[in-house]
């Protein structure tokens, strides 16, 4: 039998990872529930946020790779400072995307397919730009966010993990409060639940759309920053997080905020325990299998609404 001591570390990892997954998937859910489109460029925003932080933070001395110089800003901002402009810039990118790409397509037929293609094309563009500027190599942040770890008996938790968890949870809680109490948050929820009625209440739906997309993109960028502290950065770094986000929203029900949160932890748990019991490469596959089970039993996910 597996000892309890072995069962705890995956649980811990699942809690931390689940929070990060929730952060990542939340942007996708918010955008879908309010604007009703699937943002394929979500992973690209994740990647772009991480690259901006890297660009702001990395010293020039660290950038000579294989004889070529990779461009950096040379500003060497500390990581926790660099994340702020990165998130703001990606927020702006989200707003621009909504205005320039999505809005024109919503009014035309075949919205689902055209926005899919458009966001996929955007993702391709962003990835190729990243490759052109930074090359296809894998990077990591020049220094650790925080060094050190903490022991709880048998368990070791790094400070980085604590920060990841704290920031993810903090942002999610802040988001919850924002949606629940603030004027714009209520406006966003209203638009998500009934577009016409929201307009009649005086809610400027176009502005809500812009903000929603911006927030969704910003969440992806933040998730990008947090995760890149423990994984390598490359132009295609956003692919797996995007896949996981898709699984999460399918499982939790796309458009449902609580569903997304719960599904994130479930997926993380499945991944971690499968990794423990089998091997890491099966972790994601089991999450997929879980999703197929959902498909058979309850196609719209745990908390999803029926497709109208």
């Amino acid at each position, binding site marked *: 039998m597996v000892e309890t001591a072995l069962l705890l570390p995956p649980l811990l990892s699942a809690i931390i990872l689940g929070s990060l997954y929730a952060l990542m998937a939340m942007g996708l859910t918010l955008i879908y529930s309010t604007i009703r489109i699937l943002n394929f460029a979500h992973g690209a925003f994740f990647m772009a946020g991480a690259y901006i932080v890297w660009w702001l933070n990395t010293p020039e001395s660290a950038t000579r790779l294989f004889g070529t110089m990779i461009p950096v800003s040379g500003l060497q901002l500390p990581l926790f400072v660099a994340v702020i402009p990165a998130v703001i810039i990606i927020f702006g990118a989200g707003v621009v995307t909504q205005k320039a790409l999505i809005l024109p397509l919503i009014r035309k037929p075949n919205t*689902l397919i*055209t926005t*899919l*293609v458009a966001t996929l*094309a*955007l*993702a391709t*563009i962003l990835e190729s730009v990243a490759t*052109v500027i930074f090359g296809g190599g894998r990077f990591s942040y020049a220094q650790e966010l925080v060094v050190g770890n903490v022991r709880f008996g048998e368990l070791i938790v790094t400070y980085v993990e604590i920060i990841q968890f704290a920031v993810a949870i903090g942002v999610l809680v802040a988001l919850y409060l924002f949606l629940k109490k603030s004027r714009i948050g209520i406006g966003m929820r209203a638009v998500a639940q009934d577009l016409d009625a929201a307009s009649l209440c005086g809610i400027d739906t176009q502005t809500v759309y812009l903000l929603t997309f911006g927030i969704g993109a910003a969440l992806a960028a933040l998730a990008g920053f947090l995760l890149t502290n423990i994984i390598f950065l490359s132009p295609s770094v956003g692919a797996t997080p995007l896949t996981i986000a898709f699984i999460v929203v399918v499982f939790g029900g796309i458009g449902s905020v609580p569903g997304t949160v719960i599904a994130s932890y479930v997926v993380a748990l499945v991944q971690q325990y499968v990794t423990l019991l089998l091997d890491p490469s099966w972790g994601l596959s089991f999450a997929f299998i879980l999703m197929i089970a959902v498909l058979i039993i309850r*196609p719209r996910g745990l908390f999803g609404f029926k497709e109208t």
Partner: protein
Amino acid sequence: MRLRTIFLFVLPVAILSLYPRVAEQGYLTYTLIVILAYSIIGFYYNMLLGNVGIPFLGPMVPYAVGGYTAGYLALNGYNPLIGIVVGSFFAAGSGFAFSLLSNRVRGLYMALYSLVITLFFHQLIVRSDIPAIFHIFVGAIGQNNIPDITLGGFRWRLGDGVAYYYLGILLFVGSAIFLKILLDSRFGVAFKAVRDAEVYAASLGIGIFRVKVIAFLVSSFFIGLSGGFLTIFYQAVGPDILETSNMLLFFSMVVFGGLGTFFGPVVGAFILVPLNNYLTPYGAWRLFAWGLAILFVVLVAPEGAVGKAEHLLRGRSIRGLIGSARAWTRTASGTSTS
């Protein structure tokens, strides 16, 4: 036969058939073969997406199944042509599996599920310890050194692959004719009914699920056919065909040409394949240019090249194109109301 069909279809095919006699460049033959193969994929993916209206994001799966099966059989001593045929049937089988999905979900959920299942499939076959049933996919390496077709006693690769060229034309014409017949038949009507008014169609007694199954079976068959053909032609196949970059390629063909038009995908293939080849040496810039081009088409001319051509022929002018571009900038700057 209508004059338009003759002009648009028979004539170019006749000209294409004469081509290898006239030209010497093997590279152009190569490109044309690829264009023909992709046109077949385009025809049937367009049918599924545009005519039946199912947002299916996994056409790479039947493509892969057809390709790998053909390759596997060829590697194991069977005539590659048989491999292509068998591959098509297996591809249709994979299409059937996806059609079961269409009974449970539609719209966005169909898109999501089909995408995630495809990604899953990709994950599965790249492993080194894949389950036996996926044996033919032989992991990340893929299949290489697939033997050539040797029907009629000579290697088909001789003479810059002219034999492949003619096979390609044959398959292309065959699949195009089949598609035309299918769309003109009551199935075509049923497809449109399912796309535009599913509930109403059901109330008329049209078996919705049956129609979707047939749509998946047929489109997967031909996509697999093309996959098998290309695999034998390239003499290799690998798991990269399941990646989203390939999905983008298939999508762009359909979108460029025009979702729901008949010849759209052919035009799309004729534009994209050479474009792709031309841009390959530019590395990441290729993807950049491509993404930009697709974005442009989707925003300014979502009805695609053929759709736009149809507009032009109906009396509207080049102004129409500029008008669309203007319309885009207008909506983007928010001067029209919600």
